[in-house]
């Protein structure tokens, strides 16, 4: 029985009808397109009356195929398919002909727009004639989530999911959770202490019955698919047994290697080789830095097991735990496997590398420091106990220069984007400085002051008007050492003059960059990233926390520069998506997936086993299947698509040399029918 197709042409207010004669499109569709038995137009097809019209006509006219000529299928394909479901029509017989984004919005000439729309509708009608009913794929859901990264975004997402009643695995590669927020002194725009608002959350994570915490651990591999991910976690050798250790501090107090630069203090303070990154760390138990530990160095040099080295055993001797000590030199990396249904990626950012701005002497002059280093100086738990002191000689700087946009908005240094937080934290720095060094003076070089956020503008104004920071609009061309001063050469573009300031300390508002291993990590998860290596959300407006892989969500600065409130909000959003996903036992997935040909013996499959499809698949959805004879011998090895992983991109089908792969809903026959429907003049 041939299909009865209905064509519904939308005006979209005047979005479409201004450049497309919609009445004519409907008329032509009925006149010329075979199979079309009903056509109409409507001012707003997506509105309730529009959808009702669609439902009514499916019933009244007995329509078995629908073409809605309207906006992009990304906008309303789901809307119209849901409307069709209500009438009992299989939704995969409903197609969208995009005459807005791909036609009316890009053309000015109404005649051209109308002709093109007529063609587009005819193409989609031809495809609809060949549409088959498809059934959604059902997948089982493992009701646990994985959160990768234990900064503020990861912590917030983990807590929200755990509070919702689901088990959460939180993996952090450092020895403690807390991330960059734990390093900050005070936070804008309220100047409340970062530690005071952060550490209670960290404790909550540690004590939450639904959260399983892996610190000093990294994601080794991610397999499986939406609802059923298989995770391999590498628990790096900590050399300390977390169950036995009480965090009594005996070990690190006796450690003789005391001059190792502390990563937490951004190199401004020192730590020991067996150490807890900071006093409020969670877990508050140490780790041995094997690179710098005398025992491990000796063992490497002599090529002996660490336990056999006698160079220094002070920490294990000092450990009061008995009979088995909590320190274990022979510990090795361990791979743990976990199954989860959803993943939140919250792997954070890193600060722009020091040496990139040779002209500012970053990395060369001790008193040119970065924003995060200033945070550590200003922090009460930092290396100077919160006093602003120069790293070179411990002197209190009386003149301090802050340079904004160091890296950010500078394509020549590889960051064309705005890091978004620097205007605010620089304003905050000038205040913290002024609160601690009353007689000092702060200068700020800026390009623009971008303080868009609740109470943000007022905060920046306060730095200028009440706290007396001198804001100079212009770039700094050079910073060089002259005696014990740093000469800052810059321009003040508002007065058109050249400025030369003899400063005692310079703070660079360094750009927020994606983690060094972001690309490699994204490939591990099969998620996409942008030109700056930040992970990509699938839609910048309507799907801001969804990654390109189903079931994997993004939170915090791994997706782009953002401040704490934004990271927290995004983490909450990601958590709510995870909770929705984990709320049912089974998930329905779009059946638009690829399928590799299967036939009766002796052919079995037209697949020739070249596995080019496996190479191009961005989602690792192609598996190899051995077709075996009764005796178990392999007859041939062919490709198979894992429906759970497949995202229906069609790359495999396009690549397949023997035309053995078909994408449901987009098979060759349908695509050719569309192309052949174009009238070429």
């Amino acid at each position, binding site marked *: 029985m041939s299909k009865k197709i209905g064509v519904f042409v939308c005006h979209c207010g005047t979005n479409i009808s201004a450049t497309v004669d919609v009445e004519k499109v409907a008329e032509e569709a009925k006149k010329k397109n075979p199979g079309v038995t009903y056509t109409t137009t409507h001012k707003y097809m997506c509105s309730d009356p529009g959808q009702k019209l669609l439902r009514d006509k499916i019933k009244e006219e007995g329509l078995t195929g629908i073409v809605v000529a309207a906006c992009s299928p990304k906008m309303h394909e789901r809307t119209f398919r849901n409307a069709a479901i209500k009438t009992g029509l299989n939704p995969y017989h409903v197609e969208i002909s995009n005459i807005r984004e791909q036609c009316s919005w890009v053309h000015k000439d109404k005649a051209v727009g109308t002709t093109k729309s007529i063609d587009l509708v005819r193409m989609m009608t031809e495809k609809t004639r060949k549409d088959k009913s498809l059934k959604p794929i059902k997948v089982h859901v493992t009701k646990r989530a994985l959160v990768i990264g234990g900064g503020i975004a990861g912590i917030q997402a983990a807590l929200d999911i755990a509070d919702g009643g689901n088990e959460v695995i939180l993996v952090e590669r450092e020895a403690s959770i807390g991330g960059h927020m734990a390093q900050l002194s005070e936070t804008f725009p309220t100047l409340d202490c970062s530690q005071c608002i952060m550490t209670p959350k960290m404790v909550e994570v540690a004590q939450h019955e639904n959260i399983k915490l892996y610190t000093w651990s990294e994601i080794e591999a991610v397999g499986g698919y939406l609802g059923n991910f298989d995770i391999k976690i590498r628990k790096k050798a900590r050399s300390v047994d977390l169950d036995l250790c009480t965090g009594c501090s005996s070990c690190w107090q006796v450690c003789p290697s005391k001059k190792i630069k502390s990563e937490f203090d951004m190199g401004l303070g020192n730590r020991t080789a067996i150490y807890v990154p900071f006093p409020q760390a969670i877990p508050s138990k140490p780790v041995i830095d094997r690179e710098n530990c005398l025992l491990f160095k000796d063992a490497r040099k002599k090529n002996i097991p660490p336990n056999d080295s006698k160079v220094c055993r002070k920490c294990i001797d000092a450990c009061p735990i008995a009979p088995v000590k909590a320190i274990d030199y022979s510990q090795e990396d361990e791979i743990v496997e976990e199954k989860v249904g959803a993943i939140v990626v919250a792997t954070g950012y890193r600060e722009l590398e020091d040496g990139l*701005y*040779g*002209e500012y002497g970053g990395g*060369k002059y001790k008193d040119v420091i970065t924003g995060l280093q200033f945070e550590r100086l200003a922090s009460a738990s930092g290396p100077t106990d919160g006093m602003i002191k120069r790293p070179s000689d411990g002197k209190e700087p009386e003149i301090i220069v802050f340079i904004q946009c160091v890296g950010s908005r500078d394509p020549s240094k590889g960051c064309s984007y705005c890091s978004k937080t620097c205007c605010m934290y620089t304003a905050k720095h000038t205040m913290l400085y002024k609160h601690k060094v009353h007689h000092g003076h702060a200068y700020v070089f800026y390009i623009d002051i971008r303080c868009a956020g609740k109470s943000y503008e007022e905060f920046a104004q306060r730095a200028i008007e009440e706290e007396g920071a001198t804001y100079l609009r212009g770039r700094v061309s050079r910073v*060089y*050492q*002259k005696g014990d001063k740093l000469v800052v050469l810059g321009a003040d573009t508002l007065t058109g003059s050249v400025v030369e300031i003899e400063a005692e300390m310079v703070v660079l508002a360094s750009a927020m960059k994606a983690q060094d291993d972001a690309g490699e990590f994204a490939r591990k998860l099969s998620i996409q990233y942008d030109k700056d290596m930040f992970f990509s959300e699938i839609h910048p407006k309507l799907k801001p926390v969804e990654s390109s892989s189903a079931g994997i969500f993004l939170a915090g600065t791994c997706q782009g520069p953002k401040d704490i409130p934004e990271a927290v909000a995004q983490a909450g959003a990601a958590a709510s998506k995870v909770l929705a996903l984990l709320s049912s036992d089974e998930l329905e997935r779009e059946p638009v997936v690829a399928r590799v040909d299967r036939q009766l013996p002796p052919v079995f499959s037209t697949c020739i086993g070249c596995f080019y499809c496996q190479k191009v698949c961005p989602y690792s959805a192609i598996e190899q299947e051995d077709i075996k004879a009764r005796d178990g011998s392999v007859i041939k090895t062919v490709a198979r698509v894992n429906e759970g992983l497949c995202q229906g991109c069609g790359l495999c089908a396009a690549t397949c040399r023997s035309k053995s792969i078909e994408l449901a809903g987009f098979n060759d026959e349908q695509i050719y029918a569309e192309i052949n429907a174009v009238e070429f003049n």
Partner: protein
Amino acid sequence: MRIGYYPGCAITTGSSSEEYGTSVLRVSQVIGPELEEIHDWNCCGASSAHATNHKLSTALSIRNISLAEKYGFKEILAPCPMCSQRLIISQKDVADDEKLKKEVEDAIEMPCNSGVKILNYLELIKNYCMDDIAKNLKKTPKDLKIASYYGCLLVRPPKVLQFDDPEDPKSMDEIVKAIGAKPVEWEFKTNCCGGGFTLSRTDVVLKLTNDILEGAVEAGADAIAVACPMCHANLDMRQKKIEKEYNRKFNIPIVYISELIGLALDLGAISLGLNKHFVETESVVNAFS
């Protein structure tokens, strides 16, 4: 191996900075590849030409490169950084612009396929002479501290020249070290000397060069090493005037890096042109004994 030698107007015999050219050629008799002057070379198109007529300046540069190609040179040494920069930029301009390439080829009546690599003097030494220096070292100076001054043209624009770190270059310091002198850490390696403003805006040049000389002296340098005739002119020829303007005494010799290498090879101060400077170079010469 032979390399095409392109002197350019500033360092050719009889010009204002001939001691640079003389010392480069004198040194090349002892170490490094054979230098052979490109027959019938012409102006590189710097100064007035490239400021007034892009096509003319490009054609002038490219003619020299095409000549080198015609004589079978794979590489050209242009010791004056203004020349090396002009040659490299012109090479890039024609490579990027088919139309310009055609026009230039018509004007010079030669093809320009630009397979020739342009070297500045530091690059030549670094690429071909470091081992030779070590082998032929005759005299090493006693405690001679040198401020290596690169100026702007050797390293900029970095995207086109792709030579050394544009903010903190090191190649000249390595050569200074190789001849046994001590490079000082200082802050003015790539500061502007005022360049072509030397005649039109002497006031600007005096301020900029004063900063450079002061920086070198404060860093404890006994002499400043350069590889650019323009830098040399501004720091050496103008030094008396700077001293008068700022009422101070520097008396710091400004020497070409080629002259320093020559002294280390014991080639004789006069044959290297060290008697042709405005600021006496005796202290530097005497350090090599």
